[in-house]
C-alpha cells in the first residue's frame, strides 16, 4: 500500500517536473533572449566545472610555467614534462592562461553576487521604507538616491579602493562594490512599491489593522519578488562591471586571478603590442559572454516579470 502511494506520488512529481520543463521550454521559445542568456552563462559554468575536474587549476599562480609561451609552445623551463606546452599558453609572469580563466570566472561572479545581493537587499529595504511611509522619510531617501544616481558610483569606489589598498581580498572587493550597488535598485523598486501601495489588498490589510512592517514584508514583498529577482540580475551585472573596471585600473585583489586583474596585467604588460592574443583574447571573450548573458537575462526577465512589456509590436 505504502509502496504504491510513493510510486504514484513519485510518478506524479516526475510528470509535473517534466511538464514544468516543457512549459519552460515553450516559454523560452517565446522569449529567446532569456534562453540565449541562460545558455551563455551555463556554458561558462560548465567550462569552470569541467576545468576544475580535469585541469591543473593551481597553475593560475605566477611562475607556474615559462613566460610568454604561445599555445602548445614547448616550455623550456620544464623540459620533458611540458613539451606539449599549455592549451592557452602562458602570460608574461608565467601563469597558465587556461588555469587563470577556470579560477577567474567563479571569483569574478562571486564579487558580483556578493555586491548584487547586498545591493538589492539594502535597496529593497530602503525602497519599501521610503514608499510605504512616505512624507519626510521618503523625501530624504529619494533625495539621497537621486544624488547617488548623479554621482558615478565608480568614482566613489576609486576613493574607497585607493584608501583600503593593502591586500584587498575577493570578498572585500564585493563588499566595497556593494557600497554603491543599492542606489539603482532602491529607485526602481520604490517606484513599483508606490504603484502597489494603492492596490486594494494593501488597503484591506491596512484597514484590518495589520502592522506596517507585516504589510510591507508579508503582503507586498511576495508580490514584488519576480520584479526584485529580475533587478537582482541587473545589479549583479553592474557590480561585475564596476569591479572589473576597478581591477583593470589596478585597484583590485592583486593575488587573485580574477578576470579584471587579468585585464589589468594585460594593460600593464602591453600584451597587445606584443601580439599575445592568447593572453588578452580569453578574458575579453569570457567577460563579453558574462555581460551579454546577464544583459539578455535581464531583458528576458523584464518581459517575464512585467507583462505589460510583452511583445506589443
Amino acid at each position: 500500500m505504502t509502496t504504491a502511494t510513493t510510486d504514484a506520488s513519485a510518478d506524479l512529481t516526475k510528470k509535473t517536473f517534466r511538464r514544468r520543463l516543457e512549459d519552460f521550454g515553450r516559454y523560452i521559445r517565446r522569449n529567446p533572449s532569456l534562453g540565449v542568456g541562460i545558455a551563455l552563462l551555463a556554458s561558462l559554468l560548465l567550462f569552470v566545472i569541467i576545468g576544475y575536474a580535469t585541469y591543473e587549476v593551481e597553475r593560475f599562480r605566477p611562475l607556474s610555467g615559462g613566460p610568454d609561451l604561445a599555445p602548445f609552445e614547448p616550455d623550456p623551463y620544464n623540459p620533458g614534462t611540458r613539451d606539449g606546452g599549455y592549451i592557452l599558453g602562458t602570460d608574461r609572469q608565467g601563469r597558465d592562461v587556461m588555469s587563470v580563466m577556470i579560477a577567474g570566472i567563479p571569483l569574478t561572479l562571486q564579487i558580483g553576487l556578493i555586491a548584487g545581493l547586498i545591493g538589492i537587499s539594502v535597496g529593497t529595504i530602503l525602497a519599501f521604507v521610503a514608499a510605504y511611509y512616505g512624507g519626510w522619510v521618503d523625501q530624504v531617501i529619494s533625495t539621497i538616491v537621486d544624488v547617488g544616481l548623479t554621482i558615478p558610483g565608480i568614482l566613489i569606489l576609486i576613493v574607497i579602493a585607493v584608501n583600503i589598498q593593502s591586500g584587498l581580498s575577493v570578498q572585500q572587493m564585493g563588499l566595497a562594490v556593494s557600497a554603491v550597488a543599492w542606489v539603482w535598485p532602491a529607485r526602481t523598486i520604490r517606484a513599483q512599491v508606490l504603484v502597489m501601495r494603492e492596490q486594494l489588498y494593501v488597503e484591506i490589510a491596512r484597514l484590518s489593522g495589520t502592522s506596517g512592517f507585516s504589510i510591507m514584508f508579508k503582503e507586498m514583498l511576495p508580490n514584488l519578488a519576480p520584479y526584485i529577482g529580475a533587478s537582482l540580475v541587473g545589479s549583479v551585472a553592474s557590480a561585475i562591471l564596476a569591479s572589473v573596471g576597478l581591477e583593470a585600473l589596478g585597484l583590485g585583489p592583486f593575488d587573485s586571478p580574477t578576470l579584471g586583474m587579468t585585464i589589468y596585467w594585460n594593460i600593464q604588460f602591453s600584451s597587445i603590442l606584443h601580439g599575445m592574443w592568447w593572453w588578452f583574447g580569453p578574458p575579453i571573450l569570457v567577460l563579453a559572454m558574462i555581460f551579454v548573458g546577464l544583459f539578455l537575462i535581464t531583458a528576458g526577465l523584464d518581459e517575464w516579470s512585467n507583462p505589460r512589456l510583452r511583445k506589443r509590436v
Partner: protein
Amino acid sequence: MTFRDILASIYTNYIFRRFLFFLLIIWIASTAIFLIPRLSGQDPVKEKLLLEAQRGGHMQAGLEEMAAEYSRKFGLDKPLLVQYGNYMADLFRFDFGPSIAYFPKSVNSLIGDSVIWTFGLLAVCTFIAFFVGTIAGALLGWPKSPNFLQYIFMPILTLAAIPYYLLALVLIYIFAFNLDWFPLFGGYAVATLPEWSFNFAWDVVHHAVLPASSIVLASLGFWALGMRGMMVTNQGEDFMIAAEAKGLRSIRLFFNYAVRNAVLPQTTALALSLGTVFTGSVLVEVIFRYPGLGNTLYQAIKLNDFFVIRGMIFIVIVTLGLATFIIDVTYPLLDPRVSYKKGS
C-alpha cells in the same frame, strides 16, 4: 505679498529647487571624499611621503617642503570639524593643492593639461552615439520599417552590455596592431608638438578614430534601446491613431508624430548618461594612452597621488552636476508639458 510668500514662491520655483539639488550633490560628494580616507584609518598622503622617503631618489628634494606644506594646509593637529571646514573652503576656491608625484606642479594644472582632450573626445562621441543610436532606435521601434534593420542593429544593441574598454582592446588589436590603419596609442604623433595647423589637426583626428569608435559602438545600444522603447509606447497613443486616421503620409507620421514625442525622454537620459560615458572612457584612455583626464587619473592611482585623485573626482562630479542642472533647467523649454512651477 508678504516676505513669507516670497520665500515660499522662491522655494517652489523649479530652477531654484534644481539648483539646491546641484549644491546638495556637490556637498554630499565632497563630504564622502573627506570622510572615506578618515574612516579607513589610513593616510595615503603620509604613506606616500614615507614610501618616497625610504626610497630616496628624485623625490628627496621636495619632501621636507611638502611635509611642511601638508601639515600646515591640513592642520592635522586640529579637530576634525576644523579640518572639514578648511577642506571645504579649499574646494570652494578650487584649490586642490600640489600633486605629490609631480611636485610642485598643482593638481589644477595637471587637470587643465588633460581636460581638453577628454572633453573633445567625449563631446564628439556622445553627439554621434546619441544621433545615430536615436535614429536606429526610432527605426527599430517603427512597425513599418523593413525587417533587415533588425538583423543589422540587433548585434549592435548587444554591444551596449559590453564595457567600452573591452571593445577598445579588440579594435586596437585588429585595426592598429594587425592592419596598421591607425596608430597604436597617444593623442598625437610622438615627435610632434601641439600647434594650430592642419597637419596636426589631421593627426589628432587620426589618433582619435579608434578610441572614439569603441566608445560610440558600445554606447549606441543604450540610445537605441531607450528610443525603441519610447517609440513602442507611443504606438498606441490617441494622437498617433488620430494622425493615422487623417491619412497623413507615413514619413510625416514617423518624424513629426512618433519621433518628435519619443525623443524628449532621451534628452533626460542624456543627463544621466554623462557620468557613465566619462567613467566608461577612463580605461579607453588608459588603453590608448590618450592624454586625457582618464589617463591622468590612472597615473595618479598608480603613483598613489591622492590630491590629484581627489581633485579630479571632485571636478568631474561638479561638471556632471552642472550638466545635469543645465539639462534639467532647459527641459521645460523642450517639453511644454513640464512646467517650471510645479516643482519636481
